[in-house]
């Protein structure tokens, strides 16, 4: 026993686990369940059939009662294990239920109807992943269209944000010009204003330009992010001016300096901004909801929301579609995880 314990508490070094270590792992394990459990539950639930979903208390895995097609009956019959008074059990199919009595037949001998008390039967179940939630959802929900719109918005907006913000940050960090401080302070002061507060006037501006029901109306307004300008400027300030001066002596134009010196050196900050922008745009809800009213322009989030309104009780489809919207952002996170965790820490907040 003590050897098992010492094996379990062995850490990479020679020291044994201390109480603090045990508490740490306990905390992290409980934390993992709380942080990730709900998402796992969503994924598991998305594979359940409508009848599986309304079961209470819910099962963890998607169980489904087995059915059997018996000659002489149109619908598939539900299969039960029935325990008789003499202690024997038989696997029977149920024809119908009347009160507390169920009429069953043996699939092998479908002619004899056996009447049993409903307490005697237990349903025969197997784990079935209801993939039809996904296939049916995708066809009814117009997933392809919404997905495409979301991809277009996310990529175009992120590209635009990176270009526009990095140019502005370059100017604000590397040049002395009149109005520089005014522009920078203006940017800073709007850092904290949520879009939802100026929703009505922005809507008015969009309407005047004629960008209602146009993906441009979703892409462009959010591109001049104060956060992005601020983050990139702070990072570019750390690039030494001597580099720029020596490039100028070598005859490089300002654009060449921006493209070939500043951008490559600011790569970590650009990566952080890119990740944030992808996250913001993919998950953005309120803004597309207001700009886009025709379904062919809907993004995934807006589509998902209206899907919930349309099909109030069809949780199986809603859950499956929610899982699909999670996949791309999860994939991006998995690939760029290193940048996110180190990037926020080193460039984001200093």
């Amino acid at each position, binding site marked *: 026993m003590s050897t098992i314990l010492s094996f379990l508490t062995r850490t990479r070094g020679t020291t044994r686990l201390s109480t603090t270590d045990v508490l740490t792992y306990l*905390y992290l394990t409980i934390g993992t369940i709380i*942080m*990730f459990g709900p998402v796992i539950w969503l994924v598991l639930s998305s594979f359940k059939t409508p009848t599986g979903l309304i079961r*209470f208390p819910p099962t963890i895995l998607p169980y489904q009662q087995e059915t059997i097609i018996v000659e002489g009956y149109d619908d598939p019959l539900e299969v039960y294990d029935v325990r008789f008074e003499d202690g024997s059990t038989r696997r029977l199919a149920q024809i119908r239920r009347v009160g507390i009595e169920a009429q069953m037949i043996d699939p092998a001998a479908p002619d004899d109807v056996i009447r049993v008390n409903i307490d005697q039967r237990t349903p025969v179940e197997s784990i079935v992943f209801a993939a039809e939630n996904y296939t049916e959802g995708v066809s009814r929900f117009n997933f392809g269209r919404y997905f495409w719109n979301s991809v277009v918005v996310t990529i175009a907006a992120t590209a635009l944000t990176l270009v526009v913000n990095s*140019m502005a940050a370059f100017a604000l960090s590397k040049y002395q010009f009149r109005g520089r401080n005014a*522009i920078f302070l203006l940017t800073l002061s709007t850092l904290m204003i949520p879009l939802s507060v100026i929703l009505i006037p922005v809507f008015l501006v969009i309407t005047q330009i004629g960008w209602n029901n146009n993906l441009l109306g979703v892409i462009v307004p959010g591109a001049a992010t104060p956060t992005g300008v601020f983050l990139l400027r702070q990072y570019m300030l750390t690039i030494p001016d001597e580099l720029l001066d020596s490039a100028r002596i070598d005859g490089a134009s300002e654009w060449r300096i921006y493209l070939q010196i500043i951008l490559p050196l600011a790569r970590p900050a650009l990566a952080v901004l890119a990740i944030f922008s992808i996250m913001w745009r*993919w998950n953005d809800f309120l803004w597309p909801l207001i700009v886009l009213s025709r379904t062919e322009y809907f993004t995934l989030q807006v589509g998902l929301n209206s899907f919930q309104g349309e099909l109030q009780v069809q949780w199986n489809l809603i859950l499956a579609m929610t899982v699909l919207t999670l996949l791309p952002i999860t994939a991006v996170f998995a690939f760029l995880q290193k940048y*996110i965790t180190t990037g926020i820490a080193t460039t984001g907040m200093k």
Partner: protein
Amino acid sequence: MTRVAPPLQRASPNLVNRVVNSIFEGFVSVIDRLMHPLQNMLGVNRMAYIFVLPNLIIFGVFIMLPMILNFSYAFTGGTNLFPNERPFVGLDNFAKLFACGNFLDANTCSEDVFWRAVGNTSVFVVAQVAFMVVISLITAMALNRKIILRGFFRSVFFYPVLLSPVVVALIWKWLLQRDGLLNGIIVSLGGERVPFLLDADWARVLVILISVWAQMGFFTLILLAGLQSIPSELYEAASMDGANGVQSFRSITLPLLMPTMSVVLVLALIRAVQAFDQVFAFTGGGPGTATTYMVQYIYSTGFSNQTREYGLAAAASVILAGALLLFTLIQIRVNRSGNSGAY
């Protein structure tokens, strides 16, 4: 775009690299040739205006202009959307918001929902920020220890940050509904079903817990970075001097983490004041007005109520912007003092 992702470059053979580089080089030459006359005309320093221009145009049209328009909405009345069709009413909108018999009782106000929203927001902000900071700090300290699976745990705690407000609300509604998993566990342990989503007190608490769930990963990461910047020699020296864990936490960790903590505190404050979409998708502001916050008041007054009172909504948003500006100023001050100190 290819420049943002070095892992791809590292994995790919030299040929791809060379092609990408030569395409980029060609692109640079084209831009260079196009922009050269401009630079000759303006001079090096004034090129800054060209660089700042695209951002400034978008910023001006979609942020500055709307903010000015919003201001004009706050001082005009009527239900027309176009500013030139709205009559000037002075401070009427503000007067209506502040028309209260007794400021401690929302029922005596003509705009009682506004004051309820102010009250709800205040309670939410204080409780949520306090809980968020404490739990993020504990998590960051746990993740900062020498543990196995560190990267895994770090990702797990960050993951909910990636989820959209709609999805967060949906996940939790699904868990907390009448026949959901949580009630399932309670009933199988012999308890009674809890009406999580129908009870005002539960809704208030859950909104706080869920927003902490969704955002804490972000703050944990910032705090973790702060913890990692504390030199480990300090702890070694302290333990040699016989300091225990609590002592070194109080005399090393807390003081050296203060600048990071203040950033986290202010960011969390601002986010909490702005809370909207996730709460809206989760409770819709209910039951009743139990979870109606300021941004939702603005949204529903201006956008979704039967009579769209743009003026009233704008006035409320000017008040909110004032509060946010105050927090920003505090942050700038705190940052300044923080920078001269530990950084």
